[in-house]
């Protein structure tokens, strides 16, 4: 009743003339400018990265820089990005592989199995993981997770290998706890929420008829989820996985704190490695030499381009796979 009253009041009251002429136009302009500024921002970022990194690109060539495996700011002043690109690629892919199934399982439990209140609790905790600042995750990793992994997992594996297959030791690497495996597991933990959130949304949007049809055919609950729900939601699930992958590529602080930061090949499974974001955050502040700084900027540009490619691929896959065609389900 009250609502209706206000509405008629407004309609009756003549609006100020300036508002009638300009109201919509101002709003449109503001929104439009804000929207366009994002595009402008992305391009100017890429431009700054390019112009700052040009010195390194000219010195080593695009291919030479991407292929180079020596990073020596001390004597030779030679910079190559390959160890970092490789490190980023391995940690992100493996982290996604580790996180993918648990993330979907969590989403299925929340959406299908758990009573609503338990589902809410689980969901909130998943969001909580996403909200923890990565430097806090990193500190926890340094002081709790890495030492624990060393004592309970790495050392037994290392001793076993040393006793039985000593030739594999170089592949396994130093089991001290700060290295590629630790960083990858932490990374997997950090990206779970993104896959879970998008998967859960996608599942909740599966039409009721879809499930009912499966029920009607005599499917069990597991079969309903496997044959009706998950295939229908696959666009959203993949979008979530790709978002997680993007996060994993760009994750900086926690990785820099745990990966052990070794800038040269060969990397080993348990031993230290480095990623593109980790070397940037490590060396940027105190990079005194121009070529050193420029090389870090060039790595930033490479990271930018790689992220862009991942996003484009993600968009393409999502569109191809989603049932509704063209839209993220």
């Amino acid at each position: 009743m009250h609502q209706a009253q206000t509405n008629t009041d407004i309609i009756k009251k003549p609006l100020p003339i300036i508002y009638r002429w300009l109201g919509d136009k101002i709003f449109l302009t503001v929104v439009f400018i804000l929207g366009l500024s994002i595009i402008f921002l992305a391009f100017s970022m890429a431009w700054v990265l390019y112009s700052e990194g040009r010195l390194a690109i000219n010195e080593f060539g695009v291919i030479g820089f991407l292929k180079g495996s020596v990073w020596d700011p001390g004597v030779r002043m030679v910079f190559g990005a390959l160890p970092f690109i490789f490190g980023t690629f391995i940690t992100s892919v493996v982290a996604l592989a580790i996180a993918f199934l648990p993330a979907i399982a969590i989403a299925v439990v929340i959406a299908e199995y758990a009573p609503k209140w338990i589902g809410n609790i689980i969901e909130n905790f998943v969001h909580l993981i996403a909200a923890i600042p990565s430097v806090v995750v990193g500190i926890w990793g340094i002081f709790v997770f890495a030492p624990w992994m060393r004592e309970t997992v790495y050392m037994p594996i290392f001793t076993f290998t040393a006793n039985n297959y000593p030739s594999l030791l170089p592949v396994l690497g130093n089991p001290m706890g700060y290295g590629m495996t630790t960083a990858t597991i932490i990374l997997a933990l950090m990206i779970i929420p993104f896959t879970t959130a998008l998967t859960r949304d996608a599942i909740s949007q599966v039409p009721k008829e879809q499930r009912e049809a499966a029920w009607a055919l005599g499917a069990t609950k597991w079969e309903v989820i496997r044959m009706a729900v998950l295939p229908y939601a696959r666009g959203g699930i993949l979008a979530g996985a790709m978002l997680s992958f993007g996060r994993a590529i760009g994750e900086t602080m926690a990785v820099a704190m745990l990966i052990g930061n070794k800038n040269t090949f060969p990397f080993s499974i348990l031993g230290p490695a480095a990623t593109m974001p980790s070397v940037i955050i490590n060396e940027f502040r105190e990079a005194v030499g121009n070529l050193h700084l420029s090389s870090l900027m060039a790595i930033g540009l490479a990271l930018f381009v790689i992220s862009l490619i991942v996003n484009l691929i993600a968009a393409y896959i999502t569109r191809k796979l989603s049932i509704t065609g063209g839209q993220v389900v």
Partner: protein
Amino acid sequence: MKINFIKTFSLILVTGMILLTAGCGEGREKDDSDDTKKERKSRVDLLGAGASFPAPLITAMADEYRDVTRNRVVVNYQSIGSGGGIRQFVEQTIMFGMTEAFLSDEIMADIESQTGGRAFNMPITLADVVATYNVPGVDKGIVFDADVLVDIYMERITNWNDPKIEKLNPDKDLPSLPITVVHRSDGSGTTNIWTSYFSRVSDEWKAKIGYGTSVNWPTGVGGNGNEGVAGAVMNTPGAIGYNSLTYALLNDMSFGYVKNSSGNIIEPSYAATTEAANIDLPEDTRVLFTNTPAEKGYPIAGFAWMLVYENLEQNNAINNRTEAKELVEFLIWSITDGQELSEELGFARLPEAAVERNYEMIKQVKWRGEEIGKELLKKKNIS
């Protein structure tokens, strides 16, 4: 409803924008009373930026100096790293820079050709680096010498009971435990001093790895920051790393003694660090004195420098004579009275030799040809 929403929204947007633009232009003076306005007029802001290691000291000095000058001079120091400090100094957006690596000959020459005067590197404080370790059953005080440290960091000594270490520590019961090497992964002045020490004592290190804020480490795990190295060392039995002395003391870490070039075993301390720099310094103080010839000096230490132009009027960040004068006055204060703050904040005091060199440089600082450095020193009865 819809119209109502759009109307309110655009109104908020427009008023917001007006307020913002107005705020940017006038906010500063408008909300001050007349009294503070007068004070503001004579207030001088000194803008500096650079190395993060001396930041706690500079900030404390700034607070103290503000009291000393009764709020007249406010020193604003931004800790953005040595690289940033040098760059901003060259681009003349700050009045003074701070760095843990002195200006290269190339930059010095550039500045000389551009401003017609030199850039001075004036030592303000000292940094010291200690070898921290985690050897179960052994407290602080394992003795190292240059060869042993280099060998450990080149992976030639890989176990704590290596004869080379045992020979230096006959009274210590060193376990058979593999050594895990930890280094800083972030670029830092600590790494600069540590690697410059290695370059001084080992030709092989100098040729292969060299020194700098980051280097291409032959072995080891990189920890991010003092805390990253400390965390890795404290959590890994058999680890060795390096931290600033203050950090090691505050976190109760075990650290080693080092045999210096005169053959004396030196326990790291602020006094031993000061002693290390109390040597015959070159006129421009651009020197690394790791592996110091000083008999009682701790060999792994270095200066942090303040960067100032000889001809202050050439620095675009300095607008008038008053600012120039206040800058020089603060500089003099920070190497004299300001040094009193050092020990309680975990910094070593400047030695006499460095203070003397600083006076010589300050004497040459000019504003439009006027020797304001000399005048101010005379005023303080320092000749």
